[in-house]
């Protein structure tokens, strides 16, 4: 299939780019490890009594946080293409209109997969042991990836609206920090003030972190938060995919 080939070529291009972008490469390798190690050893004692006790709790949280941060590059890359004229070059080629976006999101899935694998390996080296099964672990990866694809559309919108790639990162991270940290990704919800707990429990990041935790550790529910985060993913995609495409077409029609 020609369209699939073209999408794969565009995904290849997004992945090859990373080689020449030390910052981006660092965000997929050093940053997730750094977050895991810092959270574990700095906060572990205070939150869970010891880093060893905290690892099983924080590893799924870091996986979810890192997934959200990596999606920023979807918007960053798209914006770079738009502002530099690369997007126009693609549009003047006989390829489907959706191929550049599809290629970018596909490349994002590959990056996400590598990051999750890296975190799991480092987690293992730090002493994490899977309490459930490989099937549960695969379900966790699939769930996080599904959420990543849905959430990418938010970043596509940011990439379309922002004036330049720097603003994508500014907007992206400014929005991501509160929703990531005001969640159950790093600390148990019941330690927070009551007025905050309602928000935290409704936050899709909490649901996703709880689901990942449930799928990697024997204690705690998995199915309910997993369905909750899938519902959120669907909702986000249904709202942001059409909105992003609409805004993209508007931007392109500006000349």
């Amino acid at each position: 299939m020609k369209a699939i080939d073209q999408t794969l070529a565009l995904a290849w291009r997004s992945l090859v780019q990373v080689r020449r972008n030390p910052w981006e490469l660092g965000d997929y390798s050093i940053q997730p490890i750094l977050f895991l190690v810092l959270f574990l050893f700095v906060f572990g004692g205070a939150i869970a009594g010891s880093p060893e006790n905290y690892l099983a709790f924080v590893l799924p949280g870091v996986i979810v946080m890192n997934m959200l941060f990596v999606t920023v590059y979807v918007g960053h890359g798209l914006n770079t293409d738009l502002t530099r004229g690369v997007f126009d070059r693609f549009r003047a080629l006989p390829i489907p209109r959706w191929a550049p976006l599809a290629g970018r999101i596909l490349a994002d899935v590959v990056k996400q997969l590598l990051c999750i694998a890296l975190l799991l390996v480092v987690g293992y080296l730090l002493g994490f042991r899977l309490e459930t099964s490989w099937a549960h672990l695969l379900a966790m990866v699939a769930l996080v990836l599904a959420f990543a694809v849905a959430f990418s559309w938010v970043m596509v919108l940011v990439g379309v609206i922002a004036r330049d790639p720097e603003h994508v990162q500014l907007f992206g991270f400014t929005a991501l920090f509160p929703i990531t940290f005001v969640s159950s990704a790093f600390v148990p919800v019941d330690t927070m003030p009551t007025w905050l707990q309602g928000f935290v429990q409704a936050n899709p990041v909490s649901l996703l972190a709880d689901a990942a935790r449930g799928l990697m550790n024997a204690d705690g529910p998995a199915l309910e938060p997993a369905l909750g985060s899938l519902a959120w993913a669907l909702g986000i995609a249904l709202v942001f995919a059409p909105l992003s495409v609409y805004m993209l077409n508007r931007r392109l029609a500006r000349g």
Partner: protein
Amino acid sequence: MDNAIEAEGLVRAFGATRAVDGVDLRVPSGQVLGLLGPNGAGKTTVVRMLATLLAPTAGTAHVGGFDMVREAARVREIIGLTGQYASVDEKLTGRENLILIGRLLGLKRREARARADELLGDFDLREAANRPAQTYSGGMRRRLDLAASLVGRPRILFLDEPSTGLDPRARRDLWERVRQLQAGGTTVLLTTQYLEEADALADTIVVLDHGRVIAKGTAAELKARVGGRTLFLVVAHTEQAAAAGDRVAGIVGTQPRVDGETISVPVSNPSLLPAVLRDLDAAGIEVAELGLRGASLDDVFLSLTGRSGASREEPGAGEDAA
């Protein structure tokens, strides 16, 4: 097929601004058309419509015989486009950029590599082939950009201000390549702000202003209309410039442009020069410099519209910057 590009009544409005306001174009196959005009004249908008990047508000156009709106996908198969800003992926190497385009055009992996290497050789980029494009000089980047638009051997090539930002040597090099393409039968539509460039490359020149065609013809025809030459005069004392301008107008018959102590006006008859000098001398106006030079875009505009071309404000918001 006689005409590679045929456009009738092309209009593109951005809000209340009509960036392109009823443009007709005809480019015979294998010819080079130069679209000449100042910033904001609507050149880029015309190219973006013909290259299927922008829908027209009104009007029709056929590119290579295909309707640019209804058969946009067919148009994209036969065109190449090089934008005003080198649109290559800076993080990829030159070679990777060309391979990517080849793959997107449906070439097999091996074919795409072979075509990339061929173009890298043609465009003197072999040594830089495996370096990221962000390390390239402006001239190299433009060569890569042009090479990228030629991967699919397009029958019709759009070059939007191809020499912007190039030093004179790189510009000559680019011109040579455009001539080679034309010799190979490619139809080229190029936009430029420089009469010199249009003169050097184009079979026909269309002058665009405020989204409208204000003149068309060969370079020689246009120059004949402009008078071919410009008389320029520098007065020794700025306060005498206005008076000198009036006297020059009386002799030449056209109101000249006065800019500080410099006065310039298109002339058709170079022998007016001594008459101007005598007249100014008689009026007691001291002349620091007097001479003739070839017509510039500015002179074309002054002659065609009575206004200066280059110093005008841009009407459309960011219209030519896209």
